[in-house]
């Protein structure tokens, strides 16, 4: 089975990947790392640079887990993109990183994590960065 990881270039994203590797090793799963950047912004802080993705790829190869790194570049909602991929690969689990948000920030911008937790059909592992 496949474990999907939502990755962004932050400590939360790294924590999610680390947790997913442990999880995949324990149950013999393969990993699908997804990085999504919105196409209606000129610059997206959540976009992982190519160097970043290849470093990630190298790290995963080293850990010996079968894996794929995928970049989604179109669309405006990361939650939509990840939910679609979960359905596509029939994922066993989704791993995401959580970050602290203020209530106002959540009200104004919404929360991708919240949507994923509520709408994903598979179990969701939400990890925090240390």
């Amino acid at each position, binding site marked *: 089975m496949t474990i999907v990881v939502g990755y962004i270039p932050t400590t939360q994203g790294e924590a999610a990947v680390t947790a997913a590797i442990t999880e995949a090793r324990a149950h013999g799963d393969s990993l699908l790392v997804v990085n999504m*950047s*919105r*196409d*209606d*912004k*000129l*610059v*997206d*802080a959540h*976009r*992982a*640079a190519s160097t970043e993705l290849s470093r990630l790829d190298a790290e995963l190869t080293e850990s010996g887990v079968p894996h794929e790194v995928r970049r989604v*570049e*179109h669309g*405006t909602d990361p939650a939509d993109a990840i939910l679609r991929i979960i359905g596509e690969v029939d994922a066993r689990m989704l791993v995401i990183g959580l970050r602290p948000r203020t209530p106002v920030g959540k009200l104004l911008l919404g929360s991708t994590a919240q949507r994923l937790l509520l709408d994903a059909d598979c179990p969701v592992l939400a990890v925090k960065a240390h």
Partner: protein
Amino acid sequence: MDNLNHLIEGFGHVLTPMNLLFALIGVTVGTAVGVLPGIGPAMTVALLLPITYGLEPTQALIMFAGIFYGGMYGGSTTSILLNTPGESASVVTALEGNKMAKSGRAAQALATAAIGSFVAGTIGTALLVLVMPQVVAFAINLGSPELLAILLVAFVGASAVLGSSRVRGFAALLVGLTIGVVGIDFVTGQQRLTFGQPMLADGIDVVVVAVGIFAVGEALWVAAHLRRKAATVIPVGRPWMGREDWARSWKPWLRGTALGFPFGAIPAGGAEVPTFLSYLAERRLAKHPEEFGHGAIEGVAGPEAANNASAAGTLVPLLAIGLPTNATAAIMLSALQGWGFEPGPFLIDKQPVLVWTLVASLFVGNTMLLLLNLPLAPTWAKLLQIPRPYLYAGILFFATMGAYAVNAQPFDLFLLLALGLVGFALRRFGLPVLPLIIGVILGPLAEKHGRRSLQLSGGDLSGLIGGPVAWVCYAIIAGVILWPLIGRLLPGKRPSDRDHTPTEASA
């Protein structure tokens, strides 16, 4: 000496809390729109035009000048960090600036751009103080035939010299002139191109044209190209420069200023040509020419100084003769007309407080810009993360409100939409925007001077060619128009391929 007294008086007027506030608003807004690609000072000034009819002209002009200067600063940020010039004047900066950013020297590139802009802006404004009264003294004796000739040079310059294709330039100019003649003929009272619409009898308001072409046209264009991949954030530290960077930057700054100011002041100048020339000059003079193409600091310092100096130069013909040389200046001119001033050599005599306060505000605004841009560059870069739909919804809202506010006529909204479609078509077919807007604003003026000269000479066409100034102007026009033919006739010397020059007009 007299000028200096006027200028000091001008400083006295600027340093009131309200005027300082408007200068601050101007430079802040200007930097923001300069940072955002596709949104430039011309569009912003057009959007703010209807709002400023309620303001005091001096304050509104201070704000506009701040936006104009601020746009030049902000444009460099996007060029350096994103390789997407926010302003047509910053296209050249992207060549070396983005390479510097990619090799981890974004902070130095931003610093040399901001400090160079400050140096060039200050020297350029000082030159403006020196040169403007001389130009006024020269222009005050010009009659209608000479003014007509100068306006024609401006038309030909904007259409044929800038941009990639003469045919496109002249096409845009003719569209502009056509929009300009709509309305009642002021001599005979005949209706022209009104199609029996009483609403069109007063002509099409410049605000509606400018907002339609710049704002609605750009919004439609972006909406048609919304799906583009986002770029990765380039980390920017606080901009700073080391000793070597200073040593390598100060000469390009001064050379860029020397190139930029005169080009800004002549009708066919603009900021694109001097920035490009400055880049070529720096590449030739550099001690390490091999660094060019891999992030040479001289290639950022020179062009950035040149574009700010040209912004100062632009104000010389605008204030002294009433002749705009770029789109922002054209809209500032129509603002002056909107307040009932007659731009031209008499402006400085009739409105000394307005003119000198404006000039003094440039010094103040330039200093504010340095303080805003140097420490806050990373913050400005964050503006690029705003989703475009939010941005353009705001622009369309302002555009519609502004166009409606001019006359409170729903008819203007249909005009706005129609002109927005024209603006979209211009971008689609690569027609430059500048000749169009110059045609709309200067067309009626050229017509007035042309007919006045003919009236003076009793309808004799020779009345159009009066005086040496007009002769020189017509010689320049003939030279510019015939240049490709001459170039073809000369053996072995092909006109250089200009296709690589950016076609995107300063929007």
